């Protein structure tokens, strides 16, 4: 299940409004709104395609300047770099 960390850039004065709208969407968790108009959020979708659609949707949203992907996880199995240690 893809999980991504995103940074949504907005004009500072519109940030809180956008954040509220974002939080209303299913699969989006808003983690914080920064003073310079950046919203930190985590999105979750069933497939990568669905996730891409979600991000595209956000980009079309009023007040949103850009959406930047900061972290992307698309694996469910062993975490990156994980290995049994010590033997």
């Amino acid at each position, binding site marked *: 299940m893809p999980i991504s960390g995103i940074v949504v850039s907005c004009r500072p004065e519109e940030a809180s409004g956008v954040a509220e709208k974002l939080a209303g969407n299913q699969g989006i968790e808003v983690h914080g709104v920064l003073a310079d108009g950046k919203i930190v959020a985590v999105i979750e979708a069933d497939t990568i395609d669905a996730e891409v659609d979600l991000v595209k949707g956000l980009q079309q949203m009023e007040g949103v300047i850009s959406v930047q*992907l*900061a*972290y*992307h996880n698309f694996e469910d199995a062993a975490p*990156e*770099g994980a290995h049994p240690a010590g033997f």
Partner: protein
Amino acid sequence: MPKERDDSGISRRRFLKGGALAPLALALATAGGASVYLRPGEAHGFVLRPPGAIAARRFLAACVRCGKCAQACPYHAIRLQDRSVGIGTPYIAARQIPCYLCPDLPCVKACPSGALDPKTTEVEKVRMGTAQIVDREGCLSIRGLRCEVCYRQCPLIDQAITLEPRHNPRTGEHTIMEPVVHREKCVGCGVCENACVLPKPVIVVRETVEVQRDSYDF
């Protein structure tokens, strides 16, 4: 001259007994032998032969299994198969000890029968096999980690294996340095397979690829 020897000729009874038992024994021996020898094994798949080995089928015939190539190898990289039709023939278990491509190819020089082609004199022209990255998802370098051990250990670094850098979209600010094998240069020595740090090497030597195809895609 005494005549009372009983083993001077073959008695009828003995002959019959022998005639009945012998095929039985032979059949038993064959069955036993076959179970040991003709097990489907390495001989049926790709076997990494020493440098200069002629085509697989002819090699099996031409090799007299004398082991001189193995004795000539300074790294003890050449071992002898101990089962199936390839019994006694030399091979290289690259994961244990790869071929380090001695410039004077002592193994080829040692071969009496031409199973290792005596015309092989340049290590760069050796074609034991071709390295392949068999598990792209598993390869640490392709996952963006700075590993590339196979590349740096390759005796034909920057020729047989090169690094192809590309942007790592997952972190957004690092480079994926992907090792790419070039079939026209790879001699198949197995040093990469030996060096791979993963429990199951993701780069292994397979049959020599004569035709160059590009399976390398982003």
